[in-house]
């Protein structure tokens, strides 16, 4: 007989980002991303985290739950609801002007406090966001929460109060494990995120989205723009790449020769 293991409370962090294909801009005055006129979407990397959580919940099938956590303005509510439509049970949003403009450190502090208040067994994140592309938040959350951090997981399983993952490496993988509660970031190789079903979309309208403010978290340090420890001082648009030369090469040998000549001119050969 296996010992009775209580159901898990699984948390998934999600970020709202400008659409991958949108022409993103930064406002020179506020030095923040201009979000008007640009569609906001769930960070594509976070969809793998949601899917991993849902698959784990379905596999455990013991009353374990999936809660979405997001630090986002109130306007992000309908996008958070998309995560609920995929099958998550409920959501918690930290929506407060005091966290606007937070750097990585401030985000980690505020998000960790939000997560801690939910007393999770397992926190699942994506590996990075498509706007900041730092990949630093999972490690920072693990540290701030005091949980083991198992990052870059392409496979994840929970058994007997431990989480075991296959961590991607440059040449293969490592199998690493730790006691719960823990933070796990999952890679794109982990799964194929599902699309919300019609039933899921309808059901999501009734699911609870709890809204928290900084005052609810008992934070003792300033986050947001003023508390940032990496302060944006300048932003510039890089010079556009000029359109280069186009050569039609019906004869492959001529095409190859043209490339070699080009590479010689540029001292690559």
């Amino acid at each position, binding site marked *: 007989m296996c010992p009775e293991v209580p159901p898990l409370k699984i948390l998934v962090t999600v970020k709202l980002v400008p659409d991958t294909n949108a022409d993103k801009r930064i406002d020179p005055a506020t030095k923040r991303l201009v979000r008007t006129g640009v569609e906001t979407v769930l960070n594509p990397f976070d969809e793998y985290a949601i899917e991993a959580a849902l698959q784990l919940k379905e596999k455990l099938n013991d009353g374990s739950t999936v809660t979405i956590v997001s630090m986002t303005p109130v306007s992000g509510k309908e996008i958070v609801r998309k995560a609920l439509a995929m099958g998550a049970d409920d959501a918690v949003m930290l929506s407060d002007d005091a966290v606007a403009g937070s750097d990585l450190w401030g985000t980690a502090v505020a998000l960790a406090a939000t997560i801690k208040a939910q007393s999770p067994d397992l926190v699942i994140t994506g590996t990075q966001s498509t706007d900041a592309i730092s990949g*630093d938040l999972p490690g920072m959350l693990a540290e701030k929460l005091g949980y083991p951090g198992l990052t870059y997981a392409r496979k994840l399983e929970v058994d007997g109060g431990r989480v075991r993952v296959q961590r991607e490496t440059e040449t293969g993988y490592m199998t690493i494990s730790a006691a719960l509660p823990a933070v796990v970031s999952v890679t794109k*190789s982990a799964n194929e995120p599902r699309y919300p079903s019609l039933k899921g979309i309808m059901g999501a309208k009734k699911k609870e989205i709890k809204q928290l403010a900084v005052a609810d978290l008992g934070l003792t340090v300033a986050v947001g723009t003023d508390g940032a420890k990496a302060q944006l001082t300048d932003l510039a648009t*890089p010079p556009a790449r000029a359109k280069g030369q186009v050569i039609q090469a019906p004869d492959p040998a001529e095409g190859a020769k043209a490339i070699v000549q080009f590479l010689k001119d540029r001292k690559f050969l």
Partner: protein
Amino acid sequence: MKNVIAFIEHKHGTIRRSSLEAATQARALADQLGGKAHAVVAGDGAQQAAATLKKYPLDQIHVSDEDRFIDGAVDAVEFVAKAAGPSLVLVGNTMIGRDVGSRFAARVDCGVNADVVEFKTEGGEVSCVMPKLGGLVITTCKLTGSDYGVAAIRPNVFAAKETSGAGEIVQIASSGKASTVTVEDEVDEAAAELGVEEASVVVSGGRGMGGPEPFTTILKDLAEAFGGAVGASRAAVDAGWVSHGHQVGQTGKTISPQLYIAVGISGAIQHKVGMRTSETIVAINKDGNAPIAEFADLLVAGDAFAIVPELTKLVRDAKAVHA
């Protein structure tokens, strides 16, 4: 900030190139800040790595023999940083480097700048220049509000130079702590190869490759002729032709090699943001009007399956002449 501490990533004693770049850059920044250049290396093979670091211009090389995966490395960096005083910690922007840098930053409550391509120092303050939003904007962020700061440097941007360094090797005493994470095994599925982030030449294939085979034949051959790495577009990865580690683009890696050769890649924004900061871009595509024509330095329109092997042959010949 005054001192600079390079975290050294290695595999059983063999140091990653991005860490040698960090070690070299540590000296340059320490000189600008008027402090010392340190390196920290931990885990199985640390002594061997330290011996290699003797060839780099460091003041002190701190060695921890504790093999506690990320935990041991973060503890070692913290130990050295606390002893050194106000310091900038440099890590490579790699999976391990990010984990160590981010955990250290959270632990000591300092700022962290990711994917740094340039440093600016003024009056003891350090600012980092980083392309964001896939290279659409270049941001500069000052590390402030703490005695410490972390910068994850983009591989292949800063030089790694051996000099007549003679850093003093300093042993870090064992902490006796247990690791929170257990490493159960490590499996190599592919031969150790240069990653797309670190290669100076990257040959990438896209949807136009039509299947997995070209990635292990014609593209690989061309990459090898340059001593480079094979990359891929999202379409090729999503089709299962090549593993995600090779993906260049928005949901893959953002790279800036000296030479990027895109084969059968149309150049959608998804891909463009991952490679637009390459120094030189050459495209081979059947369609001369593909979007990639707008930002490639040279586009050759023709049959990639015939052009690539011919090109490989000519590149090998040209290299043989110089050899």
